[in-house]
Each structure stands twice: as structure tokens, then as C-alpha cells.
């Protein structure tokens, strides 16, 4: 019988430390992980055991990830952290393609760049020779984009104090043409319609069980959520800054007719900028939003963008009676058929669809463009403004009295129209 030498189990095991470092790297990459969760993770690893790599992965995943979009980042950071003693070189090679090291030549996966930056955390990669020679290095670690989009990140001018004051004034007067929603919750009230039996009985105890008066309750009303879909294509280029400023102001001032605000921009594709609008500072928010949306000043494909919104986002954000505010001029490159079905579906999924057309000039306007004709029957309220160049005018356009705005008048005009002009 072979006898094995006694295994030396080290006293100062580093697994707990490594798990802590790993969690800190994830925190740098954007996952919200506090110290309590790190403790829970260590306890979970203790309970689950440390035999199979797969089980270790799933254990850490269960404790540290709480949103499906973080799963990819987690996978990348896990792969880089728990495998390679030379992981630093590999990280460098992801950031700078020249430093190849031991990495094979392959395009980086979408989350790898963020993971690599999170793990490097301040260690600056060495300057490459090409940069010293003055060339421009473009490192594209994200998925490729279609040829029609123009990759431009938009630089916004800084907001002046006067503009911010104007935004506050406009918001104070703004009111969406939406009524508050009645919920099923009730609260105590002196003259509500329902009878609050619990309070009645408790009050009756003061009189020895004699019910002398009935306590009442009334339903609680809440504001619906607001979804803003902004067109940022070329035709809206002059207004995009002002419109995004408006959306940011709206997102940070709740209780004016909306509860939560989700914001999306679309041109040739749909981008979710809600996260960036949570920054209180307007400039930072617009910079972040401008950097993330990659299709500024291109063509407009309203139908395709609405289709991706309906498919990917409508079930997630339109859940509890949301109001959708669509800010677009209605000029569409695609054919009108897809647009009509998509806007109909959007209309059926949300509580109220308000279309704001900031480019409309009034005198003699008749809806001739195919996009406008397709969209108009399916919106609840149509607002237009004479060349809106200021936030105030934008706010005034939305809150002008009259529930349907100009829709009724334009529908009558649509009815009188012959076939749409094919060149529009």
C-alpha cells in the first residue's frame, strides 16, 4: 500500500482575499456590489465547495450578479481573473493591439474592453510606437455598425446659467395632457367613498365597541411613467441638443405628471439613454448620452426603430400604464407599411401616445408625407409648434390646452386628401 506524504495545507489561504479582489474588480466594471455581498459570497463558496470550476462560477454568479445585462461582464472578468497568472499581459493586449504578448489574434468580445479596463484600474498601458509617430489608433472592441450610420459622437456646448434657469421655469409650467392613474391602494380620508372597516372597528373600541361613525378611505392616485422617444437624425440635428436638455430636465423633476422617465434616442437604431440622464449635471448627462448613441445626424428609420423598441423594450417599460412621448418630425426613409403596424402596436401597448413635432410650421400645413400619414391616426395627441427653438416653446407646445392637440383638424385634412404624393 502506497503511503502518500502528508499534504501541507497552508495556514494563510488567500481564497477569501482573491474573492474580495474579484468583487472589487466587478464593482469597477459597473456592478453594484457592497461589502455585505462579498461576505455572503465567501459564505456561499464555503457552503458549495471548491471542487468543480463550473460550480465555482455559478456560485459566484448567483451571489454577485443581479441583472441579466451584467452577466456578460461577469463572464469576461471571471475568465480573465481566475485563469491566468499572466493575465496582466493579456489585458494589455486587449487595450493596445500592438502589445500582442501571449494573446492570439482575435477581435475582442463586446464586454472584454470594459472588463479589461476594470481590472487594470489605473495602470496606464505603455504608449505605442504608432501614437508617437502621430497616427491615430482606433480600437474597435464593439460590434461593427452598419455602413449607413455615421459614427460621430456629438459635442454639446456647455449649458449656460441662463439656459438652466429657463429650463426650470419651463418645467414649472409644464403639464402633460395626461390624467393621473387610480390605483387599487387606498388611504385614509375623511370623505372618501369606501368604508375603512379596520379603522372603524378600532375607533369603536374607544366607545366600548359601539360604532358611532364610519371611517372612510379613498383610492390613491399616482402618475404614470413617461417614456420619451427622441429622433436624433439629421433633420432634427438643430433641435437635438435642446430636446435632450428638455428630456434631462424632465427626468430629474418628477411629480409633474409622470413618475419614472425612460428615454430612448433613435435615428437608424434605438439607444437607451435612461442611465445617463440620472446624472444631475446636465453637461455630464448630455456628454454621456451623446457618446453612447452612435447614429447622430444620419437618416431616419422610424419604423425599424419602433420595431426594435416594441420587441425589446415595450414589455419591460410600458408595463403599468405608461405614457409615450414621441419627438420626431415624421420624415421617414423606410416605406410606410412597416411604420403603420409598428406605431399601431405601440399605441395599443401604452396608455397614451403623444406626438410632438417640433419642426412643423403652421400656415397651410397638410400632411402629405407618407410617414406622417401613417403615424397620425394612431397617436392620441399631436402637438406642433412654430419652429421651436427654445425650451419654453417646447414646453408650451406640449401643455397647450386641448387633449388631442391638432390631431382632429389634421385627420379631417387627411380624409380630404387624394393619394399621397410619391415624392415625399
Amino acid at each position, binding site marked *: 500500500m502506497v503511503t502518500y506524504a502528508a499534504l501541507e495545507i497552508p495556514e494563510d489561504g488567500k481564497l477569501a482575499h482573491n474573492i474580495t479582489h474579484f468583487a472589487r474588480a466587478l464593482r469597477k466594471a459597473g456592478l*453594484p456590489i*457592497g461589502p*455585505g*455581498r462579498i461576505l*455572503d459570497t465567501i*459564505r*456561499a463558496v464555503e*457552503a*458549495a*465547495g471548491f471542487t468543480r470550476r*463550473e*460550480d465555482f462560477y*455559478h*456560485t459566484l*454568479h*448567483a*451571489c454577485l*450578479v*443581479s*441583472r*441579466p445585462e451584467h*452577466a456578460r461582464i461577469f463572464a469576461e472578468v471571471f475568465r480573465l481573473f481566475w485563469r491566468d497568472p499572466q493575465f496582466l499581459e493579456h489585458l494589455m493586449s486587449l487595450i493596445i493591439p500592438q502589445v500582442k504578448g501571449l494573446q492570439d489574434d482575435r477581435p475582442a468580445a463586446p464586454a472584454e474592453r470594459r472588463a479589461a479596463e476594470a481590472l487594470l484600474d489605473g495602470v496606464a498601458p505603455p504608449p505605442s510606437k504608432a501614437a508617437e509617430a502621430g497616427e491615430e489608433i482606433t480600437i474597435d472592441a464593439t460590434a461593427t455598425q452598419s455602413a449607413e450610420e455615421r459614427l460621430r459622437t456629438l459635442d454639446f456646448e456647455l449649458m449656460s446659467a441662463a439656459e438652466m434657469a429657463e429650463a426650470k421655469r419651463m418645467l414649472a409650467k409644464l403639464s402633460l395632457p395626461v390624467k393621473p392613474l387610480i*390605483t*387599487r*391602494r387606498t388611504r385614509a380620508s375623511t370623505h372618501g367613498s369606501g368604508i375603512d*372597516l*379596520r379603522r372603524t*372597528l*378600532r375607533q*369603536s*373600541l374607544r366607545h*366600548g*365597541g*359601539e*360604532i358611532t361613525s364610519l371611517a372612510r378611505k379613498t383610492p390613491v392616485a399616482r402618475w404614470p411613467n413617461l417614456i420619451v422617444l427622441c429622433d436624433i437624425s439629421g433633420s432634427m440635428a438643430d433641435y437635438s441638443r435642446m430636446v435632450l436638455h428638455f428630456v434631462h430636465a424632465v427626468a430629474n423633476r418628477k411629480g409633474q405628471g409622470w413618475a419614472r422617465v425612460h428615454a430612448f434616442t433613435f435615428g437608424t437604431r434605438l439607444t437607451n439613454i435612461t442611465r445617463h440622464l440620472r446624472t444631475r449635471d446636465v453637461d455630464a448627462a448630455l456628454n454621456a448620452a451623446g457618446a453612447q448613441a452612435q447614429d447622430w445626424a444620419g437618416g431616419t428609420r422610424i419604423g425599424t426603430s419602433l420595431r426594435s423598441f*416594441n*420587441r425589446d423594450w415595450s*414589455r*419591460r417599460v410600458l*408595463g*403599468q400604464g405608461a405614457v409615450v412621448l414621441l419627438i420626431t418630425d415624421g420624415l421617414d426613409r423606410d416605406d410606410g407599411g412597416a411604420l403603420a*403596424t409598428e406605431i399601431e*402596436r405601440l399605441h395599443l401597448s401604452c396608455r397614451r401616445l403623444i406626438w410632438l413635432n417640433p419642426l412643423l410650421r403652421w400656415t397651410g400645413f397638410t400632411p402629405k408625407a407618407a410617414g406622417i400619414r401613417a403615424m397620425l391616426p394612431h397617436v392620441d395627441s399631436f402637438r406642433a409648434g412654430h419652429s421651436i427653438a427654445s425650451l419654453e416653446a417646447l414646453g408650451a407646445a406640449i401643455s397647450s390646452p386641448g387633449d388631442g392637440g391638432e390631431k382632429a383638424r389634421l385627420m379631417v385634412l387627411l380624409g380630404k386628401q387624394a393619394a399621397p404624393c410619391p415624392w415625399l
Partner: protein
Amino acid sequence: MARQEDPLTAIPQSIDAVEALLAGQGYVSSRALATVVFLSLKLGRPLFLEGEAGVGKTEIAKTLATALGRRLIRLQCYEGLDAASAVAEWNFAAQMIAIRTAEATGAGDRDALKTELFTEEYLIERPLLAAMRPQPGGAPVLLIDEIDRTDEPFEAFLLEALSDFQVTIPELGTIRAPVPPIVILTSNRTREVHDALKRRCLYHWVDYPAFGRELAILNARVPEAQAALSREVVAFVQALRREDLFKRPGVAETIDWARCLLALDVVALSPEVIADTLGAILKFQDDIQKLQGLETTRLLDAVRRETAA
């Protein structure tokens, strides 16, 4: 938190044991899900399952309850759910009768009435409170279904119940669970659940299964189907999930469709059969229209080529 339990209904001691336990009830789970279930049982933390409709989130709670021999207590969430419907409600009618009776018989001592009216005798228990009571056979499985349908005030209310496993009734006091229940929350992601609630739970996103696992699920749930038909059904649904549909079919739809085909005595798939039974897998008219006619034939041919290969 330690659990003292009857050995017959003891929790499994390893991830493999959890997989075997679930497979014994006909639920084929992924390794990730088995890991999370094991951790949740071992550490006593609630389990938060998120995913598309029809992937088996509610099913695992039922399976776990049957496998461990525990009572399943289900709280179905809806908007406006409040403490009265979730924890406990007073039986007002009985209380008022008690008051009237005391008056009529003249035995109305004011203090005695006060203490008597708000006792457990007049309390109607709702799921959350029922889960905190001791049950024969061990701690119950509390399934809080579709938590994304409620609103934020209810989530805030749940935080106390889920972190300390206790509920407070103002007139009675705090009621603590002697043995913490096994809590499973499910969500369809129609609303983002607040991070404070997710933090207290172990999170898992339940995804659509791969071909092998879905075939195993179908064999476990619909064993009377022939092997060839099962393979074709699973391959077709997997191909459908790669299409651009509004709502992709889930595992529950696969099982339903297999049962429909069995009821129609179908031996192999054909475009006519698919067109007749499409309502079992696709529930949106836009998706059904997209799959009319030639599309079905094309998909079926592609599926046949793949299964032959």
C-alpha cells in the same frame, strides 16, 4: 440559520443531490440553476428567478415542494397588493357579531372586549403569515409569483419579511417564523425590481434551454411521445427561437405542443400539421402571420437537414 429537520425531508447536501432530487420529479434543471437552488437551501436565502414567460420558474417551486415534501404556499402578486391581502386581515363580520353579542347578553366588560377582539381567533391568515407558522414536515415553500406586477410600496414591505422572516401586525405584534421558510420569488421583468430586494436574494436568470436539455425535459414530461417526433418538435422550436419573433416560444409551449400533437395522433411533422397547431406555440397574431405558408416549409426543411446531419 440552521434548520432542524426530519431526515426524510432534509435538504440535499450537494449540488449533485439537488439535480438528482429535481430530476426525480421530472424537472431537468441546468447546473447553474441547481447550484443556486442548493445555495438557497443551504444558506437560507430567498431565491429570485427572472426570465421570460414559460421557462419553468413557477414550476421549480412546485417541484421543490413536492420533492422535499413541504407545503407550497403561493402568493400571486398584482398591482395594488397590500398588507391586508398578503399578510393577514381581521374578520370584521365576526368581530362585529362578537360586539353585538356582548352587548346583548350584557357581558360587556370594556377591557376584556378590547383584548378579545384583536386576537388570533379573529385573524384571517393570508400567505405571508401562513408561511411564518410552523408546518408539519418542515418549513414550507413560499412562492411569491410575479413580483414585478406589484408596486414599490409592496416591495418595501417585503423587505422586512424577507430579511428577518417576521411579519408585524399592529394590533398583535411581531410574529417570527420558528424555521425560516424556503422563499422563491419569480418575475417576468415587466418592471425593474428594486435592488434592495434583489440584494437579499440569490439571483438567477432562467434562460431558454439548449437542444439536449430541452429534449430531456420533453422526454421527462411527455414520455409517451415517440423519440423521432420529440426530436423534431424540439428542433423546430429551437429553430423558431432563432427567428425574429415578437414572443419566442418557451419550454411550456414546447410541452403543450407535444401534447397537442399526441392528441392528434401525429407521427411526424408536416407543414399542414404545423399550420393547424401553431396556436399552441405562438400566441401573437403577427408572429403567426409571419409563419404562414412557405416560411413553415422552409423552417421544417432546415430542421430536417439538421437532425439528419
